[in-house]
Structures are given as structure tokens and as C-alpha cells.
């Protein structure tokens, strides 16, 4: 009996040892997928943030990409996520694009389908673009300005193509035009876009907007031939103008792109066509996808934040793996809204007490620390954005754990020297937000501000709870944990939806609490300014005013932790996308 028990114990121990060793192993050094790890040149952590890693001009092979979910759509007129926009440029060309280079130069817009950036006239209400000649669709048909007009027109119809941004709906002088599906054969009624010839396109806006080149960068301006438009089914095979075209699209499962024979590099100085094909596996188990990425079976993980929590531990603790990782800054700030509708936050001093008392170091930890979470935010505007100017009105750099004395002074000025009670909300599904609420509960507790923590379902957070002013007020939601990423790295693309009081509606809000007429005024000024330098200076003022009005407590400028297998070539972090630039990637 004893012998039997021992034998069983030995067998179980051996089995467990195999399991444990397997779980602990992995990393980036073992490869069965042709990574050839033994000959890999040593790399450096964060090398891809500032430079091109493994430059190569060799051709051939397949780039294997994998995604935890699916694109919102691959129809250029129906997509809103950064990774979708990044990916779309492999098979589409919009009027303008961000320069695909590392560093700050990557924030610069250049002509893509257009020869150059737009020419503003009429004080920024009219924008004209000249198209390059010689650009063709995958079937060899030449691209004309009418195709661009049609592409923008179809994207206006949010019944058929619901997912894209609404900038063109909001800013073009549409005069009742609702899109080519509802107004069949009436494209000429769209006076807001004119095409005087095949290579010129003119946009007329309702009011001046100096940053229209950013709108021209949206995939919605990628040409769509009217004859090939299949509406909501166009995503099954978008017609290519880029270096790659769709060979297969098994919806929600797999995408295969192959070389577009009618793409002419002479018309496209910003793209390469190195791999023969690109395969994207959709709907992958994220933890397994990360393992395959670390073992070199997948070349690129398509998402906006990089490896998930489980793989992060391996990446950050194993130097052999960490050397192939990049902590990339994203145009996103994690913050908490302070609700002026809920007493005593109608008093600015009570809001400022929160600003001073919060422990930013602990909040940074809640989001995963400096590598996986991000840098401590000194203000709302992410530091990597165009036009960022450093300000630190609450002395966060000097006191990252908070300034209790100043907080108490503000509480006294607010008439609440002993503190008060309020409620903080967060999204249930987000562990980091729960930790944030708990951290704030602790740090604000030091000055007598007592927080009751309430979680709400993520899917309805804005429609039914924190984003519904009536609900927030009735339920005493004084603090609401939140975060926001820019559509593009310029003030308007970041601020407008979260600090302009005029976007606040009955429910489904993106601005949860900021109501400051001075901010609204500055936003209008910045939007109308066509001089980029002056415009950026106004956005910096908006940032300062948001901090001064103390409606938002920012704490982390987000980072994503990305991994590049040693075999991946031409890799770098695009400062615009806050992830690897997909246009240059290759496996050869």
C-alpha cells in the first residue's frame, strides 16, 4: 500500500513538474515556427520606439497577423479603430496620410492619394486637393476624384455604414444630402464636394476648420468605385488601391491579402510591397495568441494595447524576451471625471482638493506601472501629441503621491474642512478601473473624502449610468473613472468630444462633466485657425484651462506593451498610431 501511494505521488509530481515547466517556459527564445532564435541578433528594449528595427528590403514570404477580436469592419467607409485604420492603408489610399517613419516625424501629414496637403481658401471653409495621376484600382481602372467623392458620400449613411466617425456628417455643408443609398442617382446634389475635373476635389464646410487635412487622412476618403459598391457587403471585398488586395475574407475568421499587380510604387513614395501575402487570423484566444507571438508563430498581434496581462509578466520579467518589446506611448489618457452637478463638487475648491489629494503613483500602478500602463500624466493632453506643452499646475512631478496639505487647504476653502462623502463609478469589466477606484478611495481618504465604490456594466456605462447626467446626479456619482484616446494626434481629435460642453446630451455622453464656456470658446478658436502653430498653441491653452477648472483628474498617459518577434523586419512604433506601423512590416 505504501509503495503504491509513493508511486502515485511520484507520478503526480512528475506530471505536475511537466505542466509547471511548460507554463514557465516559452518566452521568446524557443521557436518551432522558423524563427531561428539561436542566430537572432540581440535587440534592445524600446528600440522600436525611436528607430526602425531590422531594416530589410528583401521580398517574398507571408506576414502572419493575429487578432483577439475582429475589425469593426474592413470597409474603409465603416471603421473607427486605430488598428483598423492602420491596417486599411495596406489596401487603400486616402487623400492624406501620416508619414510612416519613427519618432515625431511620424506625426506629420503628407499627401497620399493627393499630391500634397489641402489648400484652404475662404478662411478655412473650402479645402482643395489635387490627386496624383496614374493611381489605379486592383482591376486596372484609373482612380478619379469622383470615386473619392462617392466614397465620402456613402460614408455619410450611418444606417448602412454605422461604424465610421461622423466628422464629414458634422462639418460638410450637406444641405440635406443623406448619401447615395437613400438618394440614388443624386450624387450631384452633394454640393459640399465638388470635382471640377478627374484629379481635383474640393470640400465645402459649414464653418471653418483649420485641421481638415486630418479629416482627409480618414479611410473614408479612400476611393470606392460606385459600380463595385455593395453597401454593407462591401467589406467582403473592398477594392484595393494600395500595395495589397483581398484574396479571401472569411468574415470573422480570416483575411488573406496578396500583392496588388496594379499598384505602382512610382505613385506611392510611402509604401512598400515586400511580403508576397499577408494573412490575418481573426477571433483568436488572446492568451494563446500572445504565446504564439512570443514563440514566433505569429509575426504581429493586431490590437491597440499590445500583449495582454498574462504575457506582460513574461515580457517584463525575462530579459531575453524583454529585449524584443517596446513600451509605446498611445494618444490616450486615463482619468477620472469630477462631476460639478454633484455637491460639493459644484465648488471648484472641492474639485481641486481631489486633484491635490490623488496618489498618481498608485494610480499608475493600477494600470500596470510605467512599462505596461504608462507615464504619470501631468495634464489631460497626452504628451506625445502634436502641440503638447508641458504644464504641471498641481505639482505632480514633485509630489506624485499627492499633496495632502494643499488638498486640506482647498477643502477648507470649499467649506468642507473635514471632508465629505461621495460615490465613484467604474466599468465592471475593467480590472484597472476597479483598482483605480480603490486607490482613490484610499488616497482621498487621507483628507477625509470618503468614497463609496460602484461598478457598472461596461456596455451601458455611458448610455445608462455615468454618461447619463440625470442618473449620475441622482446616484451621487461625484467621481467617474474614464479614459479617452484621440482619433488623431491633434487637439481637436482628442479634446472636442470630452471637454466641449455643447456635446453633452441626455445620455450616451463622452463628456461626462466638463462645463466651462471658456473651454468651448477656445475650442472654436482652435478649430477655425488654419495656421498649425497658432492652432496648437490654442490647444495647449485648452489643456491648461481644463486643468484649472478641475473637472478632470488625469493620472496616466497610456502606453501599450508591444512585442516584435526577432524575425520581424522594418519594425517601429508609429507615434501617430501608438502601435507598430503596419505599412513597412516584413518577414524577409
Amino acid at each position, binding site marked *: 500500500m505504501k509503495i*503504491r501511494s509513493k*508511486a*502515485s505521488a511520484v*507520478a*503526480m509530481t512528475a506530471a505536475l513538474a*511537466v*505542466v509547471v515547466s*511548460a*507554463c514557465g*517556459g*516559452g518566452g521568446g527564445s*524557443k521557436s*518551432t515556427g522558423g524563427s531561428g532564435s539561436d542566430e537572432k541578433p540581440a535587440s534592445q528594449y524600446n528600440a522600436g520606439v525611436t528607430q526602425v528595427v531590422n531594416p530589410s528590403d528583401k521580398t517574398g514570404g507571408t506576414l502572419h497577423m*493575429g487578432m483577439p477580436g475582429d475589425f*469593426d469592419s474592413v470597409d474603409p467607409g*465603416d471603421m*473607427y479603430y486605430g488598428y483598423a485604420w492602420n491596417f486599411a492603408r495596406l489596401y487603400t489610399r486616402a487623400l492624406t496620410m501620416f508619414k510612416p517613419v519613427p519618432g515625431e516625424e511620424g506625426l506629420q501629414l503628407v499627401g497620399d492619394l493627393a499630391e500634397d496637403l489641402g489648400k484652404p481658401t475662404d478662411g478655412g471653409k473650402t479645402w482643395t486637393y489635387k490627386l496624383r495621376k496614374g493611381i489605379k484600382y486592383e482591376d486596372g481602372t484609373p482612380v478619379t476624384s469622383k470615386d473619392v467623392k462617392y466614397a465620402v458620400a*456613402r460614408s455619410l*449613411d*450611418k*444606417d*448602412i*455604414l*454605422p*461604424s*465610421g*466617425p*461622423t466628422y464629414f456628417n458634422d462639418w460638410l455643408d450637406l444641405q440635406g444630402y443623406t448619401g447615395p*443609398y437613400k438618394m440614388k442617382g443624386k450624387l450631384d446634389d452633394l454640393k459640399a464636394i465638388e470635382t471640377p475635373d478627374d484629379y481635383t476635389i474640393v470640400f465645402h464646410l459649414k464653418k471653418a476648420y483649420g485641421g481638415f487635412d486630418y479629416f482627409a487622412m480618414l479611410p473614408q476618403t479612400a476611393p470606392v468605385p460606385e459600380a463595385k*459598391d*455593395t*453597401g*454593407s*457587403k462591401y467589406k467582403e471585398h473592398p477594392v484595393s488601391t494600395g500595395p495589397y488586395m483581398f484574396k479571401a475574407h472569411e*468574415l*470573422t*475568421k480570416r483575411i488573406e491579402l496578396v500583392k496588388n499587380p496594379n499598384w505602382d510604387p512610382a505613385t506611392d513614395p510611402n509604401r512598400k510591397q515586400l511580403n508576397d501575402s499577408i494573412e490575418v*487570423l481573426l*477571433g*483568436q*484566444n488572446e*492568451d*494563446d*495568441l500572445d*504565446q*504564439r507571438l512570443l*514563440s514566433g*508563430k505569429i509575426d504581429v498581434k493586431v490590437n491597440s494595447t499590445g500583449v495582454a496581462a498574462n504575457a506582460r509578466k513574461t515580457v517584463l520579467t525575462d530579459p531575453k524576451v524583454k529585449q524584443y518589446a517596446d513600451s509605446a506611448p498611445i494618444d490616450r489618457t486615463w482619468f477620472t471625471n469630477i462631476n460639478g452637478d454633484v455637491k460639493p463638487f459644484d465648488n471648484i475648491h472641492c474639485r481641486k482638493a481631489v486633484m491635490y489629494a490623488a496618489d498618481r503613483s498608485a494610480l499608475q500602478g493600477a494600470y500596470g506601472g510605467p512599462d505596461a500602463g504608462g507615464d504619470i500624466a501631468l495634464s489631460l493632453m497626452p504628451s506625445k501629441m502634436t502641440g503638447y506643452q508641458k504644464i504641471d499646475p498641481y505639482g505632480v512631478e514633485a509630489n506624485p503621491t499627492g499633496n495632502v496639505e494643499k488638498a486640506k487647504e482647498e477643502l477648507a476653502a470649499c467649506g468642507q474642512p473635514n471632508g465629505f462623502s461621495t460615490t465613484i463609478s467604474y466599468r465592471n469589466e475593467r480590472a484597472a478601473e476597479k483598482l483605480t477606484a480603490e486607490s482613490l478611495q484610499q488616497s482621498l481618504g487621507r483628507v477625509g473624502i470618503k468614497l463609496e465604490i460602484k461598478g457598472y456594466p461596461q*456596455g*451601458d456605462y455611458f*448610455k*445608462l449610468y455615468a454618461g447619463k447626467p440625470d442618473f449620475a446626479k441622482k446616484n451621487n456619482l461625484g467621481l467617474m473613472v474614464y479614459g479617452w484616446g484621440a482619433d488623431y494626434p491633434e487637439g481637436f481629435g482628442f479634446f472636442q468630444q470630452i471637454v466641449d460642453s455643447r456635446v453633452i*446630451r*441626455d*445620455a*450616451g455622453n463622452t463628456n461626462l462633466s466638463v462645463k466651462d464656456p471658456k473651454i468651448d470658446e477656445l475650442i472654436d478658436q482652435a478649430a477655425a485657425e488654419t495656421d498649425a502653430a497658432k492652432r496648437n498653441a490654442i490647444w495647449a491653452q485648452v489643456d491648461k484651462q481644463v486643468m484649472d477648472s478641475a473637472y478632470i483628474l488625469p493620472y496616466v498617459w497610456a502606453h501599450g506593451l508591444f512585442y516584435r518577434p526577432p524575425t520581424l523586419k522594418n519594425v517601429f512604433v508609429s507615434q501617430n498610431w501608438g502601435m507598430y506601423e503596419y505599412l513597412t512590416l516584413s518577414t524577409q
Partner: protein
Amino acid sequence: MLLFVVSIATFAIFFLVPRLAGMSADDLASRYVGKAANEQVIHDTAIRLGFYDPLLVQYGRFVKGIFVGVERNYGPGVELCPAPCLGYSYVTQNPVLPDLLDRIPITLSLALGAAVVWVVFGVATGVVSALRRGSFFDRFSMGIALAGVSLPIFFTGIVSLAIFRDQLGLVGDVADWVPFSEDPLTWANNLMLPWITLAFLYAAGYARLTRAGMLETMGEDYIRTARAKGLPERAVVVKHGLRATLTPVLTMFGLDLGLLLGGAVLTESTFSLPGIGKYARDAIERNDLPQVMGVTLVAAAFIIVANLIVDLLYAVVDPRVRLT
């Protein structure tokens, strides 16, 4: 009738629960619009999806689709989703039935392959354990069986991938689904790990059930009689012992297989297999009623069919159930 009840229950849960929670038709529609949708777009979407219609009208429209088909505006024109039409996804705008039919071969491959493995190994282990009661094999195999029942598939799945695919390179990349008709060997190689992992979970239950049944049966008088008559031990065990034990095993098998065919949610998610289970999970996460309805109906149909087959098989396994 059962399918009818299932569809009404699903429909009611989808619409009544949010309403009880205070959601309006527009609130419901706001789940199916883009990030930047304004109030007008949300309201138009609610109307387009019919959320302002009475529940009975909405359900009637769904049933009508099954018998008559559904017309849908896709932009440049109107297309007909022919009967039986389970509607269009609120999110992807794809017709549901073709999506489901496309995924059935994947779930079928997974479930049937795993079923073969777990029945063979589960029943064989149960028989041997019963015959060698108290032996090392009995204790060890029942220990493993206990682990199989206890360990969740998302743990055993990830661990087995790490060992057998990433470390040892013994199996193919499961996520790279290859149909049987295209390349049977790659199909089997890629599915090997999901089969074994899933079978590990189920075989445990079958081993324990078979062992218990065999222990009881092998103590019966007629087994002693069979041995006394001089029948070979193999005939005694297989023909007289195992056959009597198989009836409850078969009942359990029918339920398990039916459930799996309706969607092995965890297994397919763990191994990134785009089958019905993965489809169901995505549909639930996105609150996509037409997809949820489709999956529910298909799953219910599979359970009914599997149970029917099992009922028919009773007569084969146990002569006492035969009518003639």
C-alpha cells in the same frame, strides 16, 4: 414545440430584461451603432431594427422570416434572405443561418472526434478499473479522472498548447482551421489537441460511470452463471457485463454530444476554433439577438436529434427495450 418555447424564452429574455432595467428602445439600439453615433442615428437604428414595435409584432416578424424569408436593404439594393431565414445580425449585418451552417462542420469535427476519444478511453478505463479494483491502475486512473473532471478546459487547453504545440511541436496550429475535405491529415493533426483536451474532461465522467456500473453488474448472479457455464472471460465482461452497463453511459453520451454540437463554447474559444460555440460567445458578448436566437435554436435542435438517436440506440444495446 420545444424549439418554439426556446425561441420565445430567448426573445423574452433579450427584450424584457433590459426593459425591466429601465432601458428604452433607443438605449437598446445604441448597442448597434458606431462609436460616434448621435441621438438621431440611434433613434433611426431603433426604428430600422423594429424596437419600437410591440414585442408580439417583433416575434411575429422573426417567425415569418423562418417560413417566408426576410428582405433587407443593404444600401445599393434590397436582398432576400430566403426561408428559413433566422434574420440578420444587428452588428455584422450578415445573415445568421449561412454563418451558422458555415460553422457547423467545425463544431461537428470537434465534437465527434472528441466523443470517439472519450468514449473509447473513458469506457475502457472504467472497465479495466472495475476489473482490477483497488489496483495501482484503478487508483491512478481514477485520480486522473478526478483531475479531468475538476480542471477547467481553459486551463488544460492553454497548458496542453504550451506543452504539445509550443514546446514539443507535436501538433499543428489549431487556430489554422483546415477542413477535412481539403486535407484530412492536417485536419486531424490540428484538431488532435482539442479532441484530447475535451475528451480528458468528458472521459473522466465516463470512466467513473462505467466503473461504477461494471462493479455493480459484475457482482450479479447472471455473471456468475455465465462464468459457471464456462464462457470465456472476455465474453463475460463484454457481452454480459459491459452491455448492461452501457445504457446509462449512452444516456449521458446523448446529452453530452447534443450539448457539444450546440456549441463547445469554452473549447472553441480556448483553441480559437471558429465554430458554433465561439459564435455563440461572440453573439452574447455583443447582445446580438438574431445570432443568439440562431445559436439557441440550432443547439436545441442538436440536443433533440442526439437524444432521438440515443433512444433508438437503446434498443441495440439493451434487448429488453426492443418492442418486438
